[in-house]
Protein backbone atom coordinates (compact mmCIF):
# COMPACT_ATOMS: atom_id res chain seq x y z
CA UNK A 1 0.00 0.00 0.00
CA UNK A 2 0.95 3.61 -0.44
CA UNK A 3 2.01 4.11 3.18
CA UNK A 4 4.61 1.41 3.11
CA UNK A 5 7.24 3.62 1.46
CA UNK A 6 7.45 5.59 4.70
CA UNK A 7 7.83 2.40 6.69
CA UNK A 8 11.02 1.29 5.00
CA UNK A 9 12.87 4.55 5.14
CA UNK A 10 16.22 4.04 6.83
CA UNK A 11 17.44 6.23 9.59
CA UNK A 12 20.57 8.19 8.59
CA UNK A 13 23.75 7.06 10.29
CA UNK A 14 24.20 10.24 12.24
CA UNK A 15 20.81 9.77 13.88
CA UNK A 16 21.73 6.31 15.03
CA UNK A 17 24.69 7.68 16.90
CA UNK A 18 22.58 10.34 18.55
CA UNK A 19 20.11 7.65 19.44
CA UNK A 20 22.63 5.57 21.28
CA UNK A 21 23.83 8.59 23.19
CA UNK A 22 20.32 9.50 24.24
CA UNK A 23 19.68 5.97 25.45
CA UNK A 24 22.81 6.08 27.56
CA UNK A 25 21.86 9.35 29.17
CA UNK A 26 18.82 7.65 30.68
CA UNK A 27 21.18 6.56 33.46
CA UNK A 28 21.48 10.07 34.74
CA UNK A 29 18.52 10.30 37.03
CA UNK A 30 19.12 11.97 40.34
CA UNK A 31 17.82 9.70 43.08
CA UNK A 32 19.94 11.09 45.89
CA UNK A 33 18.82 13.31 48.76
CA UNK A 34 16.08 10.99 49.86
CA UNK A 35 15.18 13.07 52.89
CA UNK A 36 14.65 16.15 50.75
CA UNK A 37 12.45 14.14 48.44
CA UNK A 38 10.21 12.82 51.21
CA UNK A 39 9.94 16.27 52.74
CA UNK A 40 8.82 17.62 49.41
CA UNK A 41 6.32 14.80 48.90
CA UNK A 42 4.99 15.31 52.43
CA UNK A 43 4.15 18.88 51.42
CA UNK A 44 1.95 17.84 48.50
CA UNK A 45 0.28 14.69 49.86
CA UNK A 46 -3.46 14.87 50.43
CA UNK A 47 -4.00 15.98 54.01
CA UNK A 48 -6.12 13.20 55.38
CA UNK A 49 -4.72 9.94 54.03
CA UNK A 50 -7.21 7.72 55.86
CA UNK A 51 -10.22 9.59 54.58
CA UNK A 52 -8.91 10.04 51.07
CA UNK A 53 -8.11 6.36 50.73
CA UNK A 54 -11.47 5.35 52.23
CA UNK A 55 -13.32 7.56 49.75
CA UNK A 56 -11.28 6.58 46.71
CA UNK A 57 -13.78 4.12 45.25
CA UNK A 58 -14.04 3.72 41.50
CA UNK A 59 -16.66 2.13 39.30
CA UNK A 60 -15.31 -0.69 37.18
CA UNK A 61 -14.56 0.21 33.59
CA UNK A 62 -13.20 -1.56 30.56
Amino acid at each position, binding site marked *: *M*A*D*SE*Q*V*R*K*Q*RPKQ*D*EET*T*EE*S*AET*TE*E*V*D*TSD*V*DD*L*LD*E*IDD*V*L*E*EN*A*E*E*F*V*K*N*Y*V*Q*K*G*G*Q
Partner: protein
Amino acid sequence: MATHKYLGTETEYGISVVGRPDFNPVLASSLVVNAYAADGRHRARWDYEEENPLRDARGFTQPGAHEPPEDDVGLANTILTNGARFYVDHAHPEYSSPECSNPYDAVVWDKAGERILERAAAKAAQSIPDGDRTQAGRIVVSKNNTDGKGAAYGMHENYIVDRGLPFGELTRQLIPFFVSRQILVGSGRIGNEFELAVPYQISQRADFFEVEVGLETTLKRPIINTRDEPHADPERFRRLHVILGDANMSEICTYVKLGSTSLVLSMIEDGVLPSAPQLAKPVQALQQVSHDLSCTRTIPLTDDSQVTAVELQWHFLEHARKYTEEGHAPDWAPDLLAQWEHLLTGVEEDPLSLDGLIDWVSKYHLLQRYVDRDGLDWNDAKLKLIDYQYHDVRQDKGLYNRLVAGGRAKRLVTEEEVGHAIHSPPPDTRAYFRGRCLEKYRDQVAAAGWDSIIFDIGGESLQRVPMMDPGRGGREMTGDLIDRCSTAEELLANLQR
Protein backbone atom coordinates in the same frame (compact mmCIF):
# COMPACT_ATOMS: atom_id res chain seq x y z
CA MET B 1 5.46 -5.66 3.66
CA ALA B 2 3.78 -4.89 6.98
CA THR B 3 0.94 -2.39 7.13
CA HIS B 4 1.98 0.98 8.56
CA LYS B 5 1.36 0.74 12.29
CA TYR B 6 -0.91 3.70 12.93
CA LEU B 7 -1.62 3.69 16.64
CA GLY B 8 -3.14 5.47 19.60
CA THR B 9 -4.12 5.09 23.24
CA GLU B 10 -7.42 5.44 25.09
CA THR B 11 -7.43 6.00 28.83
CA GLU B 12 -10.24 5.84 31.37
CA TYR B 13 -9.06 8.07 34.20
CA GLY B 14 -9.86 7.48 37.84
CA ILE B 15 -12.03 10.26 39.31
CA SER B 16 -12.76 11.21 42.89
CA VAL B 17 -14.47 14.25 44.42
CA VAL B 18 -12.62 15.13 47.62
CA GLY B 19 -14.81 15.13 50.71
CA ARG B 20 -17.83 13.95 48.69
CA PRO B 21 -17.71 10.17 48.60
CA ASP B 22 -21.33 10.03 47.44
CA PHE B 23 -20.87 12.31 44.49
CA ASN B 24 -22.03 10.48 41.35
CA PRO B 25 -18.91 9.62 39.31
CA VAL B 26 -20.82 9.76 36.01
CA LEU B 27 -21.90 13.30 36.81
CA ALA B 28 -18.41 14.25 37.95
CA SER B 29 -16.96 12.82 34.73
CA SER B 30 -19.52 14.73 32.66
CA LEU B 31 -18.68 17.95 34.47
CA VAL B 32 -15.01 17.42 33.70
CA VAL B 33 -15.54 16.69 30.01
CA ASN B 34 -18.05 19.49 29.52
CA ALA B 35 -15.96 22.02 31.43
CA TYR B 36 -13.04 21.56 29.06
CA ALA B 37 -15.02 22.33 25.95
CA ALA B 38 -17.46 24.85 27.40
CA ASP B 39 -17.52 28.17 25.62
CA GLY B 40 -21.19 28.29 24.67
CA ARG B 41 -20.56 27.61 20.99
CA HIS B 42 -21.93 24.86 18.80
CA ARG B 43 -20.41 21.45 19.38
CA ALA B 44 -20.19 18.63 16.89
CA ARG B 45 -21.67 15.37 18.06
CA TRP B 46 -19.90 12.02 17.93
CA ASP B 47 -20.79 9.91 14.90
CA TYR B 48 -21.56 6.32 15.92
CA GLU B 49 -22.41 5.02 12.47
CA GLU B 50 -19.41 2.74 12.05
CA GLU B 51 -19.17 1.56 15.65
CA ASN B 52 -19.89 -2.03 16.53
CA PRO B 53 -18.08 -3.20 19.65
CA LEU B 54 -19.88 -6.55 19.57
CA ARG B 55 -18.38 -7.66 16.28
CA ASP B 56 -15.82 -10.37 16.98
CA ALA B 57 -12.49 -10.66 15.18
CA ARG B 58 -12.96 -14.40 15.05
CA GLY B 59 -15.72 -13.82 12.50
CA PHE B 60 -19.07 -13.61 14.26
CA THR B 61 -21.22 -11.03 15.98
CA GLN B 62 -22.35 -11.51 19.54
CA PRO B 63 -26.12 -11.77 20.07
CA GLY B 64 -27.65 -8.53 21.24
CA ALA B 65 -25.68 -6.57 18.69
CA HIS B 66 -28.48 -4.06 18.25
CA GLU B 67 -27.93 -2.53 21.65
CA PRO B 68 -26.71 1.06 21.56
CA PRO B 69 -23.03 1.13 20.63
CA GLU B 70 -22.11 2.65 23.99
CA ASP B 71 -23.99 2.24 27.22
CA ASP B 72 -23.72 5.93 27.87
CA VAL B 73 -25.12 7.50 24.71
CA GLY B 74 -26.14 11.03 25.50
CA LEU B 75 -23.39 11.64 28.03
CA ALA B 76 -20.68 14.19 27.49
CA ASN B 77 -18.90 13.40 24.28
CA THR B 78 -16.58 15.85 22.59
CA ILE B 79 -14.07 15.96 19.77
CA LEU B 80 -11.01 18.10 20.27
CA THR B 81 -9.00 20.17 17.81
CA ASN B 82 -6.04 17.85 18.38
CA GLY B 83 -8.11 15.08 16.81
CA ALA B 84 -8.82 13.29 20.11
CA ARG B 85 -12.15 12.16 21.51
CA PHE B 86 -12.85 13.26 25.09
CA TYR B 87 -15.94 11.75 26.67
CA VAL B 88 -17.53 9.80 29.51
CA ASP B 89 -17.22 6.04 29.46
CA HIS B 90 -18.24 3.69 32.26
CA ALA B 91 -18.26 6.41 34.95
CA HIS B 92 -14.80 7.66 33.98
CA PRO B 93 -13.60 10.55 31.86
CA GLU B 94 -11.90 9.02 28.87
CA TYR B 95 -9.36 10.54 26.50
CA SER B 96 -8.86 8.69 23.23
CA SER B 97 -5.78 10.06 21.55
CA PRO B 98 -5.75 10.93 17.85
CA GLU B 99 -4.25 8.39 15.46
CA CYS B 100 -0.48 8.75 15.34
CA SER B 101 2.00 7.50 12.75
CA ASN B 102 4.74 6.45 15.19
CA PRO B 103 5.24 5.61 18.89
CA TYR B 104 6.99 8.88 19.77
CA ASP B 105 4.03 10.93 18.57
CA ALA B 106 1.70 8.56 20.41
CA VAL B 107 3.58 9.36 23.64
CA VAL B 108 3.25 13.10 23.00
CA TRP B 109 -0.50 12.94 22.36
CA ASP B 110 -0.99 10.53 25.28
CA LYS B 111 0.75 12.99 27.62
CA ALA B 112 -1.33 15.81 26.14
CA GLY B 113 -4.33 13.87 27.44
CA GLU B 114 -3.02 14.22 31.02
CA ARG B 115 -2.73 17.97 30.60
CA ILE B 116 -6.24 18.17 29.17
CA LEU B 117 -7.60 16.23 32.16
CA GLU B 118 -5.67 18.46 34.54
CA ARG B 119 -7.17 21.64 33.06
CA ALA B 120 -10.63 20.14 32.72
CA ALA B 121 -10.74 18.94 36.34
CA ALA B 122 -9.64 22.32 37.68
CA LYS B 123 -12.33 24.05 35.63
CA ALA B 124 -15.02 21.53 36.55
CA ALA B 125 -14.39 21.84 40.30
CA GLN B 126 -15.85 25.33 40.10
CA SER B 127 -19.19 23.83 39.13
CA ILE B 128 -19.45 21.34 42.01
CA PRO B 129 -22.31 22.55 44.23
CA ASP B 130 -21.05 24.02 47.52
CA GLY B 131 -17.47 23.21 46.62
CA ASP B 132 -14.89 25.58 48.07
CA ARG B 133 -12.47 24.75 45.25
CA THR B 134 -9.64 23.82 47.56
CA GLN B 135 -10.84 20.94 49.69
CA ALA B 136 -14.47 19.82 49.50
CA GLY B 137 -15.52 19.63 45.87
CA ARG B 138 -12.05 19.40 44.44
CA ILE B 139 -11.91 16.80 41.68
CA VAL B 140 -8.93 14.47 41.67
CA VAL B 141 -8.19 12.77 38.36
CA SER B 142 -5.71 9.89 38.29
CA LYS B 143 -4.16 8.09 35.35
CA ASN B 144 -4.25 4.70 37.02
CA ASN B 145 -6.17 1.46 36.49
CA THR B 146 -7.46 0.27 39.85
CA ASP B 147 -8.73 1.62 43.15
CA GLY B 148 -7.17 -1.34 44.97
CA LYS B 149 -10.68 -2.32 46.09
CA GLY B 150 -11.70 -4.62 43.29
CA ALA B 151 -12.43 -2.16 40.49
CA ALA B 152 -10.34 -1.92 37.32
CA TYR B 153 -10.59 0.49 34.42
CA GLY B 154 -8.58 0.54 31.27
CA MET B 155 -5.86 2.01 29.18
CA HIS B 156 -6.22 0.51 25.74
CA GLU B 157 -3.78 0.54 22.88
CA ASN B 158 -4.89 0.44 19.27
CA TYR B 159 -2.79 -0.68 16.33
CA ILE B 160 -3.70 -0.98 12.67
CA VAL B 161 -2.91 -4.43 11.35
CA ASP B 162 -3.44 -6.12 8.01
CA ARG B 163 -6.88 -7.68 7.66
CA GLY B 164 -5.35 -10.65 5.86
CA LEU B 165 -3.43 -11.82 8.91
CA PRO B 166 -5.15 -14.79 10.60
CA PHE B 167 -6.25 -13.79 14.10
CA GLY B 168 -5.05 -17.10 15.56
CA GLU B 169 -1.48 -16.27 14.55
CA LEU B 170 -1.73 -12.92 16.37
CA THR B 171 -3.00 -14.68 19.47
CA ARG B 172 -0.24 -17.31 19.54
CA GLN B 173 2.52 -14.73 19.23
CA LEU B 174 1.06 -11.97 21.37
CA ILE B 175 0.12 -13.89 24.51
CA PRO B 176 3.75 -14.63 25.51
CA PHE B 177 4.71 -11.08 24.51
CA PHE B 178 1.99 -9.46 26.61
CA VAL B 179 2.53 -11.69 29.61
CA SER B 180 6.23 -10.76 29.68
CA ARG B 181 6.28 -7.07 28.69
CA GLN B 182 4.79 -5.89 32.01
CA ILE B 183 8.20 -6.20 33.71
CA LEU B 184 9.30 -3.25 31.56
CA VAL B 185 6.14 -1.18 31.49
CA GLY B 186 4.02 -2.02 34.56
CA SER B 187 2.76 0.88 36.67
CA GLY B 188 2.90 -0.96 40.00
CA ARG B 189 0.30 -1.22 42.73
CA ILE B 190 -0.06 -2.02 46.38
CA GLY B 191 -1.81 -5.30 47.17
CA ASN B 192 -3.51 -7.92 45.03
CA GLU B 193 -6.94 -9.35 44.26
CA PHE B 194 -6.37 -12.82 45.70
CA GLU B 195 -5.55 -12.33 49.39
CA LEU B 196 -2.00 -13.45 48.66
CA ALA B 197 1.03 -12.31 50.61
CA VAL B 198 1.93 -9.89 47.83
CA PRO B 199 2.17 -6.38 49.32
CA TYR B 200 3.22 -4.76 46.04
CA GLN B 201 3.14 -5.95 42.43
CA ILE B 202 4.40 -4.90 39.02
CA SER B 203 1.13 -4.44 37.10
CA GLN B 204 -2.05 -2.57 37.95
CA ARG B 205 -4.09 -4.71 35.59
CA ALA B 206 -2.71 -8.26 35.74
CA ASP B 207 -4.95 -9.53 38.56
CA PHE B 208 -8.09 -8.55 36.63
CA PHE B 209 -7.60 -10.90 33.67
CA GLU B 210 -9.43 -14.19 33.59
CA VAL B 211 -9.28 -15.68 30.10
CA GLU B 212 -6.86 -15.88 27.17
CA VAL B 213 -9.05 -14.68 24.32
CA GLY B 214 -12.46 -13.01 24.23
CA LEU B 215 -14.71 -10.11 23.32
CA GLU B 216 -15.46 -8.79 26.79
CA THR B 217 -13.69 -5.77 28.24
CA THR B 218 -15.46 -5.15 31.56
CA LEU B 219 -15.77 -8.68 32.93
CA LYS B 220 -13.99 -11.96 32.21
CA ARG B 221 -11.28 -9.76 30.74
CA PRO B 222 -9.17 -11.51 28.09
CA ILE B 223 -5.42 -11.16 27.47
CA ILE B 224 -6.29 -10.85 23.76
CA ASN B 225 -9.41 -8.85 23.04
CA THR B 226 -11.23 -9.78 19.85
CA ARG B 227 -13.30 -6.63 19.34
CA ASP B 228 -13.45 -6.20 15.58
CA GLU B 229 -14.22 -2.57 15.04
CA PRO B 230 -11.59 -1.26 12.62
CA HIS B 231 -12.81 2.36 12.36
CA ALA B 232 -11.28 2.09 8.90
CA ASP B 233 -11.74 0.15 5.66
CA PRO B 234 -12.71 -3.30 6.99
CA GLU B 235 -11.52 -4.99 3.81
CA ARG B 236 -7.94 -3.85 4.39
CA PHE B 237 -7.54 -3.11 8.07
CA ARG B 238 -8.02 -4.58 11.48
CA ARG B 239 -7.66 -2.46 14.61
CA LEU B 240 -6.00 -4.56 17.27
CA HIS B 241 -7.56 -3.44 20.56
CA VAL B 242 -5.12 -4.23 23.37
CA ILE B 243 -6.77 -4.03 26.77
CA LEU B 244 -4.33 -5.56 29.23
CA GLY B 245 -1.74 -2.79 29.58
CA ASP B 246 -1.31 -0.35 32.45
CA ALA B 247 -1.67 3.39 31.99
CA ASN B 248 1.84 4.80 32.31
CA MET B 249 3.00 8.09 33.73
CA SER B 250 6.54 7.35 32.49
CA GLU B 251 6.89 8.46 28.89
CA ILE B 252 9.68 5.94 28.41
CA CYS B 253 7.33 3.15 29.47
CA THR B 254 4.61 4.35 27.11
CA TYR B 255 7.17 4.58 24.31
CA VAL B 256 8.61 1.09 24.83
CA LYS B 257 5.15 -0.42 25.34
CA LEU B 258 3.77 1.03 22.10
CA GLY B 259 6.93 0.73 20.03
CA SER B 260 7.84 -2.82 20.94
CA THR B 261 4.27 -3.97 20.35
CA SER B 262 4.23 -2.23 16.94
CA LEU B 263 7.45 -3.97 15.93
CA VAL B 264 6.19 -7.37 17.07
CA LEU B 265 2.99 -6.86 15.06
CA SER B 266 4.97 -5.86 11.96
CA MET B 267 7.17 -8.95 12.25
CA ILE B 268 4.10 -11.18 12.59
CA GLU B 269 2.57 -9.58 9.49
CA ASP B 270 5.76 -10.04 7.52
CA GLY B 271 5.94 -13.68 8.60
CA VAL B 272 9.46 -13.32 10.00
CA LEU B 273 8.79 -13.94 13.68
CA PRO B 274 9.36 -17.61 14.57
CA SER B 275 6.68 -19.07 16.77
CA ALA B 276 7.12 -17.74 20.30
CA PRO B 277 7.41 -20.18 23.23
CA GLN B 278 3.85 -21.15 24.19
CA LEU B 279 2.80 -20.68 27.81
CA ALA B 280 1.11 -23.58 29.53
CA LYS B 281 -1.13 -21.32 31.66
CA PRO B 282 -1.05 -17.75 30.31
CA VAL B 283 -3.48 -16.15 32.78
CA GLN B 284 -1.73 -17.65 35.78
CA ALA B 285 1.64 -16.67 34.30
CA LEU B 286 0.46 -13.08 33.81
CA GLN B 287 -0.27 -12.85 37.51
CA GLN B 288 2.82 -14.75 38.66
CA VAL B 289 5.07 -12.46 36.65
CA SER B 290 3.32 -9.41 38.07
CA HIS B 291 3.73 -10.68 41.63
CA ASP B 292 7.49 -11.25 41.38
CA LEU B 293 9.46 -8.03 41.88
CA SER B 294 12.75 -9.84 41.25
CA CYS B 295 11.62 -10.67 37.69
CA THR B 296 13.33 -14.06 37.92
CA ARG B 297 10.39 -16.41 38.43
CA THR B 298 10.05 -19.10 35.79
CA ILE B 299 6.75 -19.91 34.14
CA PRO B 300 5.85 -23.23 32.51
CA LEU B 301 5.65 -23.76 28.76
CA THR B 302 3.48 -26.26 26.94
CA ASP B 303 6.54 -28.48 26.32
CA ASP B 304 7.11 -28.74 30.11
CA SER B 305 10.17 -26.49 30.05
CA GLN B 306 10.37 -23.21 31.98
CA VAL B 307 11.09 -19.65 30.94
CA THR B 308 11.39 -16.24 32.61
CA ALA B 309 9.66 -13.08 31.43
CA VAL B 310 13.11 -11.61 30.78
CA GLU B 311 13.98 -14.50 28.46
CA LEU B 312 10.70 -14.11 26.60
CA GLN B 313 11.37 -10.42 26.09
CA TRP B 314 14.88 -11.17 24.76
CA HIS B 315 13.30 -13.52 22.23
CA PHE B 316 11.15 -10.70 20.86
CA LEU B 317 13.85 -8.05 21.15
CA GLU B 318 16.48 -10.12 19.32
CA HIS B 319 14.11 -10.76 16.43
CA ALA B 320 13.10 -7.11 16.33
CA ARG B 321 16.76 -6.15 16.14
CA LYS B 322 17.38 -8.52 13.26
CA TYR B 323 14.25 -7.23 11.51
CA THR B 324 15.54 -3.69 11.91
CA GLU B 325 19.09 -4.48 10.82
CA GLU B 326 17.75 -6.12 7.69
CA GLY B 327 16.01 -2.87 6.81
CA HIS B 328 12.41 -3.95 7.25
CA ALA B 329 11.49 -1.78 10.23
CA PRO B 330 10.25 1.83 10.30
CA ASP B 331 12.78 4.65 10.75
CA TRP B 332 11.98 5.02 14.47
CA ALA B 333 12.94 1.41 15.21
CA PRO B 334 16.67 1.90 16.10
CA ASP B 335 15.84 4.48 18.77
CA LEU B 336 13.04 2.33 20.13
CA LEU B 337 15.27 -0.75 20.24
CA ALA B 338 17.91 1.17 22.23
CA GLN B 339 15.33 2.14 24.87
CA TRP B 340 13.79 -1.32 24.94
CA GLU B 341 17.19 -2.96 25.37
CA HIS B 342 18.19 -0.47 28.05
CA LEU B 343 15.12 -1.33 30.13
CA LEU B 344 15.44 -5.07 29.55
CA THR B 345 19.15 -5.16 30.41
CA GLY B 346 18.42 -3.17 33.57
CA VAL B 347 15.57 -5.44 34.65
CA GLU B 348 17.73 -8.51 34.02
CA GLU B 349 20.60 -7.16 36.14
CA ASP B 350 18.54 -5.51 38.88
CA PRO B 351 15.01 -4.22 38.31
CA LEU B 352 15.35 -1.77 41.18
CA SER B 353 18.17 -0.01 39.32
CA LEU B 354 15.60 1.53 36.98
CA ASP B 355 14.34 4.14 39.44
CA GLY B 356 13.09 7.15 37.50
CA LEU B 357 12.56 5.20 34.29
CA ILE B 358 9.96 2.48 34.90
CA ASP B 359 6.78 3.39 36.77
CA TRP B 360 6.54 0.29 38.94
CA VAL B 361 10.14 0.71 40.05
CA SER B 362 9.92 4.46 40.71
CA LYS B 363 6.76 4.03 42.75
CA TYR B 364 8.22 1.10 44.66
CA HIS B 365 11.27 3.12 45.70
CA LEU B 366 9.08 5.98 46.83
CA LEU B 367 6.95 3.65 48.96
CA GLN B 368 9.96 1.82 50.34
CA ARG B 369 11.52 5.10 51.43
CA TYR B 370 8.37 5.90 53.42
CA VAL B 371 8.41 2.41 54.91
CA ASP B 372 12.04 2.93 55.96
CA ARG B 373 11.68 6.48 57.27
CA ASP B 374 8.35 6.18 59.06
CA GLY B 375 8.36 2.46 59.87
CA LEU B 376 5.08 1.99 57.99
CA ASP B 377 3.35 -1.29 57.35
CA TRP B 378 2.57 -2.02 53.67
CA ASN B 379 -1.15 -1.78 54.55
CA ASP B 380 -0.80 1.76 55.84
CA ALA B 381 -3.23 4.28 54.38
CA LYS B 382 -0.40 6.68 53.71
CA LEU B 383 1.22 4.20 51.34
CA LYS B 384 -2.08 3.61 49.56
CA LEU B 385 -2.44 7.37 49.19
CA ILE B 386 1.03 7.53 47.65
CA ASP B 387 0.05 4.71 45.28
CA TYR B 388 -2.97 6.76 44.10
CA GLN B 389 -1.30 10.14 44.10
CA TYR B 390 1.62 8.93 41.99
CA HIS B 391 -0.92 8.99 39.14
CA ASP B 392 -2.58 12.34 40.00
CA VAL B 393 -2.50 14.39 36.77
CA ARG B 394 -1.85 17.70 38.53
CA GLN B 395 1.66 18.87 37.79
CA ASP B 396 2.06 20.51 41.19
CA LYS B 397 0.61 17.65 43.28
CA GLY B 398 0.94 14.43 41.31
CA LEU B 399 3.88 12.48 42.72
CA TYR B 400 5.21 11.26 39.39
CA ASN B 401 5.13 14.86 38.22
CA ARG B 402 7.00 15.94 41.36
CA LEU B 403 9.68 13.31 40.63
CA VAL B 404 10.04 14.78 37.13
CA ALA B 405 10.20 18.33 38.46
CA GLY B 406 12.96 17.32 40.87
CA GLY B 407 14.99 15.62 38.14
CA ARG B 408 14.30 12.21 39.67
CA ALA B 409 12.30 10.77 36.76
CA LYS B 410 13.34 11.03 33.16
CA ARG B 411 11.14 12.33 30.38
CA LEU B 412 11.25 11.32 26.74
CA VAL B 413 9.38 14.20 25.10
CA THR B 414 9.43 17.95 25.76
CA GLU B 415 6.72 19.99 27.43
CA GLU B 416 6.75 22.21 24.34
CA GLU B 417 5.75 19.23 22.20
CA VAL B 418 3.04 18.31 24.69
CA GLY B 419 1.74 21.89 24.81
CA HIS B 420 1.44 21.93 21.04
CA ALA B 421 -0.35 18.56 21.04
CA ILE B 422 -3.02 19.79 23.46
CA HIS B 423 -4.49 21.88 20.65
CA SER B 424 -3.03 20.51 17.41
CA PRO B 425 -3.40 17.16 15.66
CA PRO B 426 -0.57 14.89 14.54
CA PRO B 427 0.53 16.05 11.08
CA ASP B 428 0.53 12.79 9.20
CA THR B 429 -2.70 10.89 9.83
CA ARG B 430 -6.39 11.50 9.18
CA ALA B 431 -6.55 13.06 12.66
CA TYR B 432 -5.02 16.14 11.03
CA PHE B 433 -8.06 16.61 8.81
CA ARG B 434 -10.46 15.95 11.70
CA GLY B 435 -8.70 18.34 14.07
CA ARG B 436 -8.22 21.15 11.57
CA CYS B 437 -11.84 20.93 10.39
CA LEU B 438 -13.03 21.07 14.00
CA GLU B 439 -10.88 24.09 14.60
CA LYS B 440 -11.65 26.00 11.41
CA TYR B 441 -15.21 25.01 10.43
CA ARG B 442 -16.56 24.13 13.86
CA ASP B 443 -19.99 25.65 13.34
CA GLN B 444 -20.47 23.61 10.18
CA VAL B 445 -19.36 20.25 11.55
CA ALA B 446 -22.51 18.38 12.56
CA ALA B 447 -20.72 15.25 13.71
CA ALA B 448 -17.40 13.49 13.51
CA GLY B 449 -16.09 10.03 14.24
CA TRP B 450 -12.86 8.16 13.72
CA ASP B 451 -13.57 7.46 10.07
CA SER B 452 -15.78 10.33 8.91
CA ILE B 453 -16.74 13.96 9.31
CA ILE B 454 -20.29 15.10 8.65
CA PHE B 455 -20.79 18.70 7.56
CA ASP B 456 -23.95 20.74 7.73
CA ILE B 457 -23.57 23.55 5.25
CA GLY B 458 -27.23 24.48 5.28
CA GLY B 459 -28.32 22.35 2.33
CA GLU B 460 -31.12 19.78 2.29
CA SER B 461 -28.88 16.99 3.49
CA LEU B 462 -25.76 16.61 5.51
CA GLN B 463 -22.51 15.85 3.72
CA ARG B 464 -20.35 13.02 4.97
CA VAL B 465 -16.64 12.86 4.19
CA PRO B 466 -15.39 9.33 4.79
CA MET B 467 -11.84 8.79 6.06
CA MET B 468 -11.40 5.05 5.75
CA ASP B 469 -7.59 5.05 5.67
CA PRO B 470 -5.94 6.24 8.91
CA GLY B 471 -2.89 7.39 6.95
CA ARG B 472 -4.75 9.64 4.51
CA GLY B 473 -5.77 13.20 5.30
CA GLY B 474 -2.54 14.51 6.80
CA ARG B 475 -1.05 17.96 6.36
CA GLU B 476 0.72 17.07 3.14
CA MET B 477 -2.55 16.08 1.53
CA THR B 478 -5.02 18.54 3.09
CA GLY B 479 -3.03 21.32 4.78
CA ASP B 480 -2.99 23.78 1.87
CA LEU B 481 -6.58 23.04 1.05
CA ILE B 482 -7.76 23.82 4.58
CA ASP B 483 -5.57 26.93 4.71
CA ARG B 484 -7.12 28.12 1.44
CA CYS B 485 -10.78 27.40 2.16
CA SER B 486 -12.37 29.81 4.59
CA THR B 487 -15.67 27.92 4.79
CA ALA B 488 -16.76 24.29 4.81
CA GLU B 489 -18.70 24.91 1.55
CA GLU B 490 -15.47 25.86 -0.16
CA LEU B 491 -13.68 22.88 1.35
CA LEU B 492 -16.35 20.42 0.21
CA ALA B 493 -16.49 21.93 -3.30
CA ASN B 494 -12.73 21.46 -3.58
CA LEU B 495 -12.81 17.93 -2.19
CA GLN B 496 -15.38 16.92 -4.81
CA ARG B 497 -13.19 18.12 -7.65
